[in-house]
């Protein structure tokens, strides 16, 4: 499918800002939605709206079928063995919090250790800090190298008999470097340590097969992969999910309730208390289909062009410099000598370009590189080479205005 046809699938890509064509380069924050996702949401709201899993009436049965079909679509997309290993959440953040709480309740005690990395998004740091303070456990942090790679030797040295879990990004939302998660999982499993992979960025650009990867948990958001906001997934291996207590109590997640005590349903219901995102979750079906189409048509021309342009510009410091283009997704964070990231973002905005400036929810990583913030341009497969050229040209103009 050609790029023009792909772009027409996304109504928001045709929007104009300040009378100019929108160039949307904030995809790492959230992607745009295809019409098929919007249609699914409308259909769920106008034709199929009923609460799921509860009633015997026709509408509820239909809504339940759609919701469970979405679970099957996710299972297939990530290559999970069984649907019971796919839990719907409100997003990556909720998925990680669920594990930090439930896994932590069951497996983490005083003096135990949790390992994260310096390049994690706050949502893969703070839930673990909260767990550590709750359980008097210790958080250990894997270092990032100057070119934006994880220091695997350091990771290995941090693993001990007290390490209960390692939480690591598939792809950093700042650096855009694809972490060797399979190797990391191998290293950790050799020492009997389970691994949670934050797939918020990785699922979009790299895809995943959780069985091949052999990860213990994989978390991602729907809204970054074209689905409705408020949708998210937690994949967990059955052996862990069976052992983990529920995160939230409420309807749907129980087997029997008496005032003497309550027994819980099996996964995934055990972890899906309360009314779920009935209209949202089914949008994952067209969203993942879109992701499949986009991934097939994506080439690395945009990645190579932007990487080359940023690397050869002496005014620009790029964070996350790949040792080979296969290690990088088109997420570029950088700073410009003498120009503040916020000024650049503001000027680019007036040129119709949406980029992100600031700490990108990764304050420890900003400290690591000694900056107060960065400018980030993150491309999706629907972005064109023309947009990339316009971005590079506009960036140059913006820098010249400021420096």
């Amino acid at each position, binding site marked *: 499918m050609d790029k023009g046809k792909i772009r027409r699938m996304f109504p928001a890509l045709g929007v104009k800002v300040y009378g100019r064509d929108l160039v949307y380069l904030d995809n790492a924050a959230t992607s745009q939605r295809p019409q098929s996702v919007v249609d699914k949401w409308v259909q769920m709201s106008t034709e199929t709206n009923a609460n799921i899993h509860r009633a015997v009436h026709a509408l509820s049965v239909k809504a339940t079928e759609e919701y469970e079909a979405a679970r099957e679509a996710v299972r297939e997309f990530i290559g999970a063995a069984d649907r019971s290993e796919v839990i719907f959440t409100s997003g990556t953040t909720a998925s990680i919090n669920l594990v930090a709480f439930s896994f932590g309740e069951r497996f983490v005690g005083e003096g135990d250790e949790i390992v994260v990395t310096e390049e994690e998004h706050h949502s893969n740091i703070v839930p673990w800090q909260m767990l550590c303070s709750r359980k008097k456990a210790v958080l250990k942090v894997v270092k990032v190298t100057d070119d934006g790679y994880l220091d695997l030797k350091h990771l290995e040295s941090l693993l001990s008999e007290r390490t209960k879990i390692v939480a690591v990004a598939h792809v950093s939302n700042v650096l855009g470097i694809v972490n060797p998660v399979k190797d990391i999982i191998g290293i950790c499993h050799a020492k009997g340590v389970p691994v949670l992979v934050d797939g918020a960025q990785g699922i979009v650009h790299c895809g995943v097969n959780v069985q091949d990867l052999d990860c213990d948990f994989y978390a991602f958001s729907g809204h970054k992969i074209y689905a409705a906001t408020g949708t998210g997934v937690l994949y967990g291996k059955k052996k862990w999910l069976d052992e983990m207590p529920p995160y939230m109590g409420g309807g749907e997640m129980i087997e029997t309730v008496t005032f003497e005590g309550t027994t819980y349903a099996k996964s995934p219901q055990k972890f899906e208390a309360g009314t779920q995102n009935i209209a949202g979750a089914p949008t994952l079906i067209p969203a993942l289909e879109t992701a499949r189409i986009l991934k097939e048509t994506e080439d690395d021309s945009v990645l190579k062009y932007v990487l080359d342009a940023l690397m050869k510009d002496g005014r620009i410091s790029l964070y996350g410099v790949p040792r080979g283009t296969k290690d990088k997704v088109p997420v570029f964070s950088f700073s410009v000598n003498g120009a503040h990231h916020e*000024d650049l973002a503001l000027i680019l905005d007036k040129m119709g370009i949406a980029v992100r*400036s600031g700490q990108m929810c990764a304050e420890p990583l900003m400290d690591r590189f000694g900056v107060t913030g960065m400018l980030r341009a993150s491309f999706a497969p629907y972005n064109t080479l023309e947009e990339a050229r316009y971005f590079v040209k506009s960036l140059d103009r913006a820098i010249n205005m400021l420096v």
Partner: protein
Amino acid sequence: MDLQEAKDKVVEDFSMFDEWLDKYEYLIGLGKELEEYPEEARTEDRLIKGCQSRVWLDSEKREGRLFFKADSDAIITKGIISLLISVYSGRTPEEIAGDDFAFLDEIGLKENLSPTRAGGLVSMIETLKRTAEEAR
């Protein structure tokens, strides 16, 4: 130039530009012209809360009037605070505290800044007003 004249001049200056990029260039110019900020005043308590970039504001009362100095690590923000200072520095606390700052809406500054930046502008105005209230 009295306060009203100073505000009118800013509105007139802004009206010369059609494009927001030109207005930014004008603000960048103002930022670059801003008087150097004293190193010893670069303190935590002089930072204006609510701005994404760092903005320092220092004030001094002389002969019943308030004089401001400011700085920011982002140049457009520095231009904005510079514009505010050019209008309000040297006024009496009563003038500043009693002003409606409506000329900023007239030049469309608030709605043309990104939400975080507009929040920063609101914080700058609040800080100026609070300083004036306290100096009364």
